[in-house]
């Protein structure tokens, strides 16, 4: 077992280090362009539609509408789509959009699913560009002015923004705020340079309407429609850009149970999407995206195996040692020693420690280059590495569900 574990560690280390080095090199090349402000020419004022699907969002949709009302772009329409909510969502929407003719409301009494209502909105909207936005998210007033210039390039099919956490309160939310600051901000930006953005986050992403018509809108059978659509954007030879300077604020799971439900859907959806588009992999026409995605998932699977193997080795060692103590009357003190012997460090320990160090460097660099402040995260900085342990469990659960053909629902 140990030999296999060591071999796995070497392999994971090599792939993960290659990934990190590639990431840092790209960051080094483009570091000055991260916050590059693209000018919006006077002649370019296309019509923009915001689509806001809502299912049982009575608690948060008023804030969301309030933030949309402050959006300063003029040639705009907002369409709120009720997805058969069972709470007061419809009533709150009607109250809040009253008197603002930029807003319209489609009140579906049946539940079509998020992708279903978004497709309904795409059909009726009049915008040249469509921003899909979650009903529990809020946007900054100048978000459209920041995002729309990216579409001057005809090859741009979609633009993502930085996803921030709205009022992180719990330890879990603070840890996730760090994760989002890196994963759904800096990573998306770097991926956009490498032409391999594989998600157009649900809280806010803007699409070229003609491209949406071309690819047939969202896949209504997929539980992660924002992930799946990214694959088809690439397939249609459009690029997905990222405007790191534009921000959307969203609500995150407060409890571990809520997080589990969210991630089970994300990861199960990722597997579903990968299986659907597996033919895109290693194809010349898929470009770097077709190489990156299999590499990404290989690393995740190998990481999961390494995690499971370390858990197995640690737990079996722990149980064995606990069993030893039964012979000594559970005298724990005789076997505790705090002497630090640097010679006890083998190559596998060095590999593990260097990966941990790389993770910490990535976190620090991520916060600095995205112009965030460490003090805003506090405990979240400690919690962020712990999230990776949880995610291994969630990935394991998603893979298990996929193997057993168990369907995961959106909600």
């Amino acid at each position, binding site marked *: 077992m140990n030999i296999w574990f060591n071999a796995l560690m070497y392999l994971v280390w090599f792939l993960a280090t290659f990934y990190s080095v590639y990431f840092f090199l*790209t960051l080094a*090349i483009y570091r000055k362009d991260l916050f590059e402000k693209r000018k919006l020419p006077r002649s370019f004022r296309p019509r923009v539609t915001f689509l806001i699907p809502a299912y049982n969002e009575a608690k948060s949709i008023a804030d969301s509408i309030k933030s949309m009302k402050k959006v300063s772009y003029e040639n705009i329409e907002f369409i709120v789509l009720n997805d058969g909510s069972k709470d007061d969502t419809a009533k709150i929407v009607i109250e809040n959009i009253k008197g603002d003719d930029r807003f319209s409301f489609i009140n579906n009494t049946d539940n079509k699913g998020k992708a279903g209502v978004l497709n309904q909105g795409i059909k009726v909207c009049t915008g040249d560009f469509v921003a899909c936005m979650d009903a529990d998210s809020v946007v900054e007033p100048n978000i459209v002015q920041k995002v729309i210039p990216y579409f001057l390039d005809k090859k741009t099919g979609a633009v993502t923004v930085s996803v921030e956490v709205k009022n992180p309160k719990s330890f879990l939310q603070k840890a996730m705020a760090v994760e989002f600051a890196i994963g759904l901000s800096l990573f998306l930006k770097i991926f956009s340079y490498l032409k391999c953005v594989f998600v157009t986050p649900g809280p806010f992403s803007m699409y070229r309407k003609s491209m949406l018509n071309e690819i047939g809108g969202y896949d209504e059978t997929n539980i992660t429609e924002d992930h799946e659509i990214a694959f088809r954007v690439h397939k249609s030879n459009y690029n997905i850009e990222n405007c790191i300077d534009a921000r959307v604020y969203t609500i995150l799971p407060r409890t571990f149970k809520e997080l589990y439900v969210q991630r089970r859907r994300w990861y199960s959806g990722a597997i579903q999407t990968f299986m659907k588009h597996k033919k895109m992999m290693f194809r010349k026409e898929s470009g770097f995206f077709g190489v990156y995605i299999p590499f990404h998932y290989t690393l995740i699977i190998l990481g999961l195996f390494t995690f499971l193997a370390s858990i197995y080795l640690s737990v079996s060692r722990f149980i064995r040692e606990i069993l030893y103590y039964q012979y000594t009357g559970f005298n724990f003190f005789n076997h505790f020693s705090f002497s630090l012997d640097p010679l006890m460090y*083998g190559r596998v320990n060095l590999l593990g420690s260097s990966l941990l160090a790389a993770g910490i460097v990535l976190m620090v660099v991520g916060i600095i280059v995205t112009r965030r402040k460490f003090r805003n995260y506090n405990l979240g900085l400690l919690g962020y590495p712990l999230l990776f342990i949880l995610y291994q469990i969630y990935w394991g659960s998603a893979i298990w569900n996929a193997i057993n053909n168990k369907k995961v629902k959106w909600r």
Partner: protein
Amino acid sequence: MTKKKSVRNYLPVLAFAITLFLFLSVIIIGNILNNERQDFVAEEMQKMYSDFNSMQTLSLIMGDYDDEMVCIAFESKLQELDSYIWTLAEKIDKYRIVTEEFQKDEFYLKQKKTFNENEIFYYLMMRKMNRQCDMSKEPLLFFYQNSFDCKKCDDQSFVLTDINEDDDDLENEVAIFSLDVDLNISAIDMMTKYYEIDEYPCLIFSDGTRMCGMMDKTIIERKLCEINPELMICEELNQET
């Protein structure tokens, strides 16, 4: 932007080269640490040889010189040796585990063999001195196999470590000799035949009592106290009972 795009094309090669460089650095640092470990073990083994030589000299001059003085010198040497010999055995095992990632390391196998041979020497020397100098050091022989063939050998080793720790905290009166029967050392083979050991782990006490199979701490301590009630660990045992 075009320049950046052309640089971007070379990124995979550059990233691979840097990763390879980092990988080789880890391998080199790992090798340096391996060498450091080997140097440490070799140095400690050298120290052990030197102590054994001193003891042998003391043993040879006994009878020609003042026996009492020799016994005092011998006892002091024994205490000194006892303080690090257990730790050294543990370190050889731990360093071997850390070093051996994919294959058996010959260095540690050789060191372990030498260590075991010296342990027998140390054991015999101690028996002799116990007789001639009226010392109260209580020897205990522990015969073991690899953990694959002997599931309980590691458990027994743990218990003996515990007894050794207790003893170190008191007067250091018990000397435990761990003998690996897999090493094919003729002296160990001879001893296993002499004591008719056919089951592992197996303990041999100074009165010749053989206890094979897994023994818990209390059983071993009771036996040690039965042989030598003056041991400090017996006081604690009596208090507990």
